[in-house]
């Protein structure tokens, strides 16, 4: 079994490790780094539970090899809250009841982080298309849409106020 040395930055911390090329990024995150906030639902790139940010863009980590992330930046749900304060998306999901069982939530939030980065003020329709690759079996999506709207508003207000 041959391994490959990779260096990846996950939530701001650099990790240099030897991995088997066939190791999936989601397994690397969950099992090597013990960051179990990233979930595995379908294992076939359909449900979005495993969504993380790879160089700022949402990807389904069950369909990426860890070696493909070599030299890149990864952000998982564990990296969203900063200095003890929830990210506006996390706050939005809490305030608007955007989750029930919570299984889809980490992936949903990472996907929405990418969405809001590129489109800070999305319409309801853009939000619905934006999360179309993430499945939720509980909420019926309406409160997820509200949570994203809550976060978008809060993030724009924060932009508007000079620090």
């Amino acid at each position: 079994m041959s391994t490959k040395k990779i260096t990846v930055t996950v939530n701001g911390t650099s990790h240099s490790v030897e991995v088997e090329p066939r190791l999936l990024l989601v397994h690397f995150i969950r099992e090597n780094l013990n960051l179990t906030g990233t979930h595995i639902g379908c294992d076939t790139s359909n449900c979005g539970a495993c969504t993380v940010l790879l160089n700022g863009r949402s990807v389904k980590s069950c369909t990426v090899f860890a070696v493909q992330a070599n030299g890149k930046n990864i952000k998982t749900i564990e990296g969203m809250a900063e200095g003890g304060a929830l990210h506006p998306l996390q706050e939005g999901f809490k305030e608007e009841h955007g989750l029930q069982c919570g299984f889809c939530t980490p992936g949903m939030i990472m996907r929405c982080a990418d969405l809001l980065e590129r489109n800070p003020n999305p319409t309801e329709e853009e939000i619905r298309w934006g999360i179309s690759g993430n499945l939720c079996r509980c909420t019926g999506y309406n409160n997820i849409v509200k949570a994203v709207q809550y976060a978008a508003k809060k993030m724009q207000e924060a932009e508007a106020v000079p620090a």
Partner: protein
Amino acid sequence: MIPQSFQYEAPATLAKALSLLQQYGDAKILSGGHSLIPMLKLRLATPEHIIDISGIKGLSYIKEQGGYLKIGALTKESDLEESRTIRTRYPILMDAAKMIADPSVRNLATIGGNLAHGDAANDHPAVMLALRAEIIATGPNGKRNIPVDEFFLGFFTTALQPDEILTEIHIPVKKAKTGGAYLKLERKVGDYATAGVAVQLTKDDQGHIAQIGIGLTNVSAAPMRASNAEAVLKGKSPTDELIAKAALAAARECDPNADLRGTVEYKRAMVKTLTERAVRLALKRAK
């Protein structure tokens, strides 16, 4: 699902990638990995070597140059979606990019991989047939241009040789009075097409259809051109009657299989409806 073990290389240059392909007998190229990795996980593909070309610089671009819209093989679906050139001048490509998979898949999936995979269920092949594109393959002896009509040879089979890399796509630059559209029926976001129809056409000064390309998705073993439907409309004034006749021709010449997405009759009916609608939308866009 865990793939079988393989050796992995991520060359930084095209030259290095080509020499690795030559060196290894059993190697697979990886671009976005979103067709390949699912196949590796199911062990439908068990290559000994994987050559990840995604880090090669200079293979991701969208530019109009020398009479062509040139798209680099590593251009991602999300790049197409965000491109002003595509949005304003090539709506057929925007239609397709937005209907492919879902936003996270589109952040990695490449246009080169979509074509090289040779899957009649993928959406870009029909679009390239409608656009009469050329596929540029680079091999040990340099580049060759493959007309799209000679590219898709059969079920998951393309004209690419094992030692070649698809590097670029050439699409004739948009002319005046030209419009296109891609319509796809899918059961849900992320599903492959039940049927898809791509149309690109150019009108002449009299309003006749001077040129037309029609490609069909997922209704034949290999991506196919609806030649009979094209012949009905070419050189003619597009009356309702002729559009309906062309749509019927497309429905007759396709060769779908019955599966979970529908019966043969249903898919033919959908090809008919989508062809009518796509021709009308393309005409509307051909200003």
